[in-house]
């Protein structure tokens, strides 16, 4: 498969190099809000939306910085814009859809501290994606994040009913589970290169 095709970029971000399970981005919300499937779903949606917005803004900023030849300010601009993008999204949702805000609102501030968003912006810059590729990349990353979060939440809901030794309750257990999921996701590797 052509490494620059939109399909490949999407699959690569969603499955092969899953943001959470292969690149370890966005672990805080992954461990924090994966206890219930419903909250995990809402968090996933909110993250996907913010990813899309920041990907587009990061693309614009990078273009502007390149034009002005001041790329060394990239990191500072990205973080500032992502923080304000999250604020903006929060205000827009609050104004136009109060019901959605009640359901999703509390997740939005959490996303600012989610390194997956900054990671997305940085990776798309390093890989020199064009606009469409950036879009495919951000949607793929968002889908991948949601999949990982949902799988984890499903497993943890089942674990509520299981008896586990007292030492392994809490974070250690979640990490071991994440390790198993990550092991499973490794088998998606080869999707891009096998049939050629």
């Amino acid at each position, binding site marked *: 498969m052509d490494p620059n095709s939109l399909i490949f970029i999407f699959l690569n971000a969603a499955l092969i190099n899953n943001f959470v399970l292969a690149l370890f981005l966005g672990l805080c919300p992954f461990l924090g809000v994966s206890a219930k499937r419903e909250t995990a779903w809402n968090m996933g949606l909110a993250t996907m939306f913010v990813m899309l917005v920041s990907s587009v803004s990061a693309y614009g900023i990078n273009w502007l910085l390149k034009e002005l030849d001041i790329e060394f300010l990239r990191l500072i601009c990205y973080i500032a814009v992502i923080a304000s993008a999250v604020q903006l999204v929060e205000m827009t949702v609050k104004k136009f859809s109060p019901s959605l805000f009640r359901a999703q609102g509390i997740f939005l501030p959490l996303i600012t501290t989610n*390194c997956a968003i900054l990671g997305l912006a940085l990776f798309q810059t390093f890989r020199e994606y064009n606009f469409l590729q950036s879009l495919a990349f951000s949607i793929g990353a968002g889908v991948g994040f949601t999949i990982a979060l949902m799988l984890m939440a499903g497993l943890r809901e089942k674990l509520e009913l299981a008896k586990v030794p007292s030492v392994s309750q809490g974070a250690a257990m979640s990490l*071991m589970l994440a*390790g198993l999921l*990550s092991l499973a996701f490794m088998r998606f590797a080869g999707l891009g290169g096998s049939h050629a």
Partner: protein
Amino acid sequence: MSVLPNQQEQITADTFLRGLWQENPVFVMLLGLCPVLAVTNSTMNAIAMGLATTFVLVASSTLVSLLRKAIPKQVRIATYIIIIATFVTMVDYLIQAISLDLYNALGAFIQLIVANCVILGRAEAYASKQKVGAAVVNAFGMGAGFTIALLCLGTVRELLGAGTILGFQIFSANFEPWVVMILPPGGFFVLGAWLLLFEYLKQRKERKLPNAEGATS
């Protein structure tokens, strides 16, 4: 002085040591996990990442503490983020100047230090309320604790995954490396195992205490 909610802390050994053990950012507070797992597939990367994070932590804590009376409350988070991003950009260029190989190995994770909640957490919870001396000592402690945690993971993963430490062969040539340890799942497993170990030690200590009291009475 009275506006400051917390008491000024006297610099003691505890100011430094707290970061190493009681409030270890990784093992106890579970903060800043992305770099902890992502770059610890070798000891060298772990050391470099630990030092880079410590530098940013100390530098930003110093500046935040120096400016603590000049920063209005409403814009403090924005200010902290700009300060942190500045130092991270500096580290990014410094590492490129020191070694391109190292820079390529760490990749985007140097710039992702910005999103490491340990640093913002220190600025907000400690440096913005304490004098420069205490802030610096505390930041060094936290940085050291973070580096030690990275080393704990990095050495175990490199030893089991490649049979080497810092590139030197430790196990005999017959050792078949557990490749999975260098791969992403290994990161989760090793951190999980360390947490299990600490939890076990803690519980054993708690069990022993009442037993000891029972024996004396």
